[in-house]
């Protein structure tokens, strides 16, 4: 496995590590860090002096401001520099200002937490890190070099002492590769910890994702209702009319005649089509849920269940439509699952609002062992519930019983 950063490179086999580019890159990174650090000190000090000197004529304030925002520039350069010894690119923690223009940019950046973290990093970098970079580079270059040229400048020792020093020098260079890479890796890890985006930098994005997901669920719901309406007004009406016409036709032909038999058969087909259509529509969007709410819809769903279902529904007020729909389909799916897999003879559904959360429990007395990974039903429901910020918990030990527990915040 290839190393992704300097610290990982240290764990490579020495024969590979020493011929790799990691020690050289680390050295370049640290050299750059030292130079860049000193430049930062110089610039920031200059800005501060300018600020102090000119604060009487207001331009100084701009210099102060620039000092505060120096971190933004330093942070950006540091993230860019880090690519040298870290293959995982560090994303920019800053967000795009809501409006164009310098003023908007300034106000936005000053309110961002990452701006202040970058300023902190700049101070630490200027005060300590760049000096340590310089120290590491100096020592690792200077010491082996000093060994290498020992015979040239050490006059008061015999050659038998100084020549071995020269011979040891290459070894010193080789050994130096390790502290250089180690410090570079550690420094980059520190920089990463400070300069990487935090979760609260991305909060706004997360909220937006959640909202768009909720909007999507809403859109699906509207679409389902439309489909239900269309089927009801179209195909269903026509099938009822067809069945009625066939019934009328049957009145005109003698009972038991071939025509009567054919008409009876046709009518049976129309009836089956109606029944299937009704089941389909119930799966798409149960009308009673819209009209009467969760308790009524669950009661009806329990009536369709293949085993007796005890109900304990304490839902006095209507809940938001998306929550009712999510909870309803969990109940329906759970009841369907127990019929298919659990060999249960009895089930119960309990629903109530505790505080600002809707709790729904579906239990059965079956043999348990339900595995959500084997069917997509429960996973799909978990997704659906998650879209309204709810959770689905499944407890189904082998031997049973099975309990599906749903909680959805309903903000009431």
């Amino acid at each position, binding site marked *: 496995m290839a190393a992704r950063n300097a610290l990982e490179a240290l764990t490579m086999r020495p024969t590979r590590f020493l011929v790799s580019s990691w020690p050289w890159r680390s050295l370049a990174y640290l050299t750059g860090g030292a130079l860049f650090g000193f430049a930062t000190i110089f610039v920031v000090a200059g800005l501060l002096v300018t600020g102090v000197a000119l604060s009487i004529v207001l331009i100084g304030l701009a210099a102060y401001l620039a000092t505060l925002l120096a971190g933004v520039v330093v942070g950006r350069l540091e993230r860019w520099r880090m690519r040298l010894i870290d293959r995982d690119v560090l994303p920019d923690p800053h967000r795009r200002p809501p409006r164009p223009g310098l003023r908007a940019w300034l106000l936005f950046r000053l309110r961002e937490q990452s701006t202040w973290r970058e300023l902190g990093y700049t101070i630490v970098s200027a005060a300590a890190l760049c000096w340590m970079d310089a120290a590491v580079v100096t020592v690792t270059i200077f010491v082996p070099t000093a060994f290498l040229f020992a015979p040239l400048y050490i006059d008061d020792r015999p050659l038998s002492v100084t020549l071995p020093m020269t011979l040891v020098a290459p070894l010193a260079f080789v050994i130096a590769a390790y502290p250089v890479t180690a410090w570079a890796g550690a420094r980059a890890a520190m920089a990463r910890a400070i300069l990487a985006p935090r979760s609260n930098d991305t909060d706004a994005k997360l909220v937006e994702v959640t909202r768009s997901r909720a909007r999507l669920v809403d859109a699906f719901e509207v679409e389902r209702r439309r489909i239900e*309406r269309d089927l*009801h*007004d179209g195909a*269903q*009406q*026509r099938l*009822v*009319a067809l*069945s*009625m*016409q*066939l*019934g*009328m036709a*049957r*009145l005109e032909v003698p009972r038991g005649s071939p025509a009567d038999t054919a008409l009876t058969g046709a*009518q049976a087909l*129309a*009836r089956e089509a*109606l*029944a299937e259509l*009704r089941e389909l*529509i*119930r799966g798409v969007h149960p*009308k*009673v849920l*819209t*009209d*009467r709410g969760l308790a*009524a819809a669950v*009661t*009806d769903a*329990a*009536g*369709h*269940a293949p085993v*007796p*279902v005890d*109900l304990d529904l304490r839902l006095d007020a209507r809940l938001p439509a998306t929550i009712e729909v999510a909870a309803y389909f969990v109940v329906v799916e759970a009841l369907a699952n127990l019929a298919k897999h659990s060999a249960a003879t009895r089930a119960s559904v309990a629903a109530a609002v505790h505080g600002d959360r809707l709790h729904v429990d579906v239990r059965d007395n079956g043999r348990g062992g339900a595995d959500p990974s084997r069917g997509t039903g429960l996973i799909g429901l978990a997704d659906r519930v998650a879209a309204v910020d709810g959770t689905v918990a499944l407890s189904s030990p082998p031997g049973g019983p099975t309990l599906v527990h749903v909680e959805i915040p309903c903000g009431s």
Partner: protein
Amino acid sequence: MRVVIAEDGLIVREGIAGMLRRFGHEVVAAVGDAPALMAAVTEHEPDVVVTDVRMPPGFSDEGLQAAIALRAADPSLPVLVLSQYVEQTYAAELLDSAPAAGVGYLLKDRIGDVEEFVDALVQVASGRTVVDPDVVRQLLGRRRDPLQRLTAREREVLGLMAEGRSNAAIARTLTVSEAAVAKHIGSLLAKLDLPPDADDHRRVRAVLAYLRTG
């Protein structure tokens, strides 16, 4: 019989009207929404009303609400409600709306069985209660506790009772004697702690109410 029909689908509305006329009933008004239904009933004072659950403007349960309102205004007005769905909730609301006179809740599919449908309408008009077999099945399936005491045959009889059948009709369906049916009914009513009653439809209502409230 003088009938008012409320149904928003034109083909179905005209179909029902034609069917009823063929059986010699008079369709005094065939309307497409709930306000028109209320107006037609006030104007024509029909013997029975047939209404769809879902109608304009909201395409929700306007027909059912109209039926309940009509029965609240005149508890003796028989109403047959047609629904696309087996919704015990709607059936229960309708049955709870007012006591006494005929009331019915049928799946729309039943219209296809022309003779049975017209017969059901006549029964409702004459003050009986007719509930769709599917709805009855749903009601029976849900609350098992009190019904577990019943035998399979008694449950069968109870289901047929809930559909508004007379003892004679139940006897024919189950190919047993009427006396046997009477015995089953007496036994199941006793098991359900319901006192015997001479009136068929009161008995049905009592049974349904018992199933609903459990």
